[in-house]
């Protein structure tokens, strides 16, 4: 009976492994994926170097990655800009991550981010006359609520009509773009602005606590990480969320309410994405343009996957991608590499995480209980299950 034996070997981690060794092995796969992505990025840079410099330049990746590192970690200001760039990524990453834990794929973080930002900006303009002590909580709170509401909708639809959240959140992303375009070029349009955008917010501007632009949104993200870790792993609600994600039927038999939990999870997810949008608008941009271009909602998916939907993992993944964003400007200036290279690197990291088979073969990493595999593979259930209630 070799077959069941073989199956067991893969599913169970070796008993002798200690906690340290286990967590090291947990890091091995993401680290390998990042390393491989950097290699792929380097190959692309070298191959395209005739277009950058006019001749084939093997040293170009070193210049580019060097600039990326010094632009994100080379000075105090660089580190601060990394933190600022990481803030929305961590918050939105947590949003996508908690969805994953409940077996929900929230592609709508982008839309919830925009709605959070729009609501925060609207309230920020409206409360311009109030002192910051009142204006900031009001604006931030409105942003959070808007995100929550925008996450509630697909959660409700999923729970009570079975409409798959992947499709509804994709559609809602585009609805959000139109709502923002309408609001910021119509009723909320500022008076003396050159292009369609809201008025600049008044006293709701998040105070800068560190460096040139290190606003308190950083603290918000720093608080959100342990809070979500506590919620997921130490609270009853978190246990129920994880149970629904692992096995909705078992959750129902255990007396939990999958429908309510789906709605609640999507609402919390929306709230976090809304917080990302609100802190970005209140702390960084100080107004919201009608055609606000951002990719935070999609980067958040990458952050959550790289962080294996664990709050601490998401923190580090968010910092990494934040560093890439922060350093990309210097990379473009010093090496002539367009900032879009960051998207390429992110996609390739995800590719190697999804295709961990290749990574395992290349680095001879042994199966660690297939944690990553099973997590990635059980996230999306079939559309067809939408009616199987």
């Amino acid at each position, binding site marked *: 009976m070799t077959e069941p034996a073989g199956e067991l070997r893969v599913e169970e981690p070796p008993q002798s492994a200690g906690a340290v060794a286990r967590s090291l092995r947990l890091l091995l796969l993401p680290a390998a994926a990042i390393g491989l992505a950097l290699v792929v990025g380097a190959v692309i840079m070298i191959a*395209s170097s005739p*277009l950058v410099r006019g001749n084939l330049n093997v040293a170009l990746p070193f210049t580019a990655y060097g600039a990326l590192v010094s632009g994100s970690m080379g000075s105090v200001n660089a580190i601060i800009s990394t933190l600022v760039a990481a803030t929305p990524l961590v918050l939105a990453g947590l949003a996508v991550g908690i969805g994953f834990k409940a077996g929900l794929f929230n592609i709508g973080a982008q839309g919830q981010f925009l709605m959070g930002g729009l609501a925060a900006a609207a309230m920020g303009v409206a409360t311009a006359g109030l002192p910051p002590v009142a204006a900031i909580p009001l604006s931030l709170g409105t942003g959070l609520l808007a995100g929550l509401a925008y996450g509630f909708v697909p959660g409700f639809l999923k729970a009570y009509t079975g409409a798959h959240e992947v499709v509804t959140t994709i559609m809602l992303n585009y609805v959000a773009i*139109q709502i923002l375009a309408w609001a910021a070029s119509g009723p909320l349009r500022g008076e003396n602005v050159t292009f369609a955008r809201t008025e600049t917010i008044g006293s709701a501007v998040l105070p800068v606590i560190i460096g040139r632009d290190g606003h308190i949104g950083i603290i918000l993200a720093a608080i959100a990480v342990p809070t979500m870790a506590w919620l997921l792993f130490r609270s009853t609600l978190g246990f129920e969320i994880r149970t629904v994600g692992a096995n909705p039927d078992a959750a129902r038999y255990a007396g939990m309410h999958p429908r309510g939990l789906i709605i609640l999870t999507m609402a919390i997810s929306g709230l976090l994405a809304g917080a990302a949008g609100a802190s970005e608008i209140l702390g960084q941009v100080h107004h919201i343009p009608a055609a606000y271009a951002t990719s935070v909602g999609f980067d958040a998916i990458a952050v959550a996957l790289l962080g294996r939907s664990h709050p601490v993992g998401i923190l580090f993944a968010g910092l990494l991608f934040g560093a890439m964003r922060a350093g990309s400007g210097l990379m473009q200036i010093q090496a002539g590499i367009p900032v879009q290279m960051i998207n390429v690197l992110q996609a390739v990291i995800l590719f190697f995480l999804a295709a961990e088979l290749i990574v*395992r073969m290349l680095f001879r990493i042994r*199966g660690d209980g297939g944690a990553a595999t099973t997590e990635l593979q059980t996230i*999306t259930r079939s559309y*067809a299950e939408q009616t199987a209630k």
Partner: protein
Amino acid sequence: MEFFYDLPVIGYLFQLIGWLVDVLPIIAPTIVAAAIPIALGAMCGFMNERSGVVNIGIEGMMLTAAFVAWWAASISAQVVPSGAFGPLGISAPLLIGLVAAIGAAMLVSLVHAWLSITVRADQIISGTIINIFAVGITGYLNLLISRTAPPSAGQFSRLSLPDAVEDLPVVGWLLDAVLSQGPIGLGLLVAIVVMQILLFRSRWGLRTRAVGEHPEAAETVGIDVIALRYRNVIIGGFFAGLAGAYLTIEFGNSFQGEMTNGRGFIALAALIFGRWTPLGLFGAALLFTTSEGIQRAVRFGPPEGALGDLLSAIPSQFYSALPYLITIIILAGVVGRSLAPAAVGRPYSREKREKRARPAMSEAPETT
């Protein structure tokens, strides 16, 4: 007709219909032109989802193809003679661009197929990877290439029908709007009809539907689920390639970063709204772009009277959001239900093969 216009409430409806009858022939060509890339993208999704593979990477595939078509055509225009032959403005550089775009999209499809069928990774993640990568690589290369500002290779031209067709009563304008297309648009029209027939009348169609609904049952009657899925996903790439190429060498003649602008996702919506059939998705694509077309018509020539005020008062963004809202409503089953093929998104594994193969990938099983 005028009499009906004065009726309370219902009168507005008659006014609207009367206005649409006047306006549609004028805006029909733009509506059809806008629907073609969406329908082609939806055909890509159709090939994927009918055989049980979710593809949210249509947007990325289209963007890649759009870039490659433009780039390949533009480079080859500097080498090969670019004189057009035939009535559709077909020239060697444009053909090279078209073939390159199809090849690129099929290559991306192959990656999607490999990740979702062989590796059995999450198919939504695979699609997400494709979308992020496409935005990155096309933006990256486009920025580098635009420094040298290569000349455009031009674009395919439209079929011009004889005037007699356009002058036909009642249907003349419709025939003219639908049939006055370049080679890619005409290709779509043929593909819609052919695939609709193949899906319900051919062995391939029966097998594809079986694999999409119940792969285990399909396997027991001897259908190679994995091979069929691979084939269909890659053919899907062919359609995504056409969709991208349409944007840069038929509808327009240049490339801008992220120019697909959500068309791949509207395509997904059209696929759902069209209930996973070629004719349905084409109809859905037309309906969606009609929404945009009416918005433009209202802006430039609103109907007279209260109806015109009403239509002008609706923000233009509402028309743009309408396709997405309709799709959500349809999915929620409020007005009619649209159900996906049952096995969509579920990776297929032949269980015996899986049990033997999987341990071997991480470490050799100790077989006796």
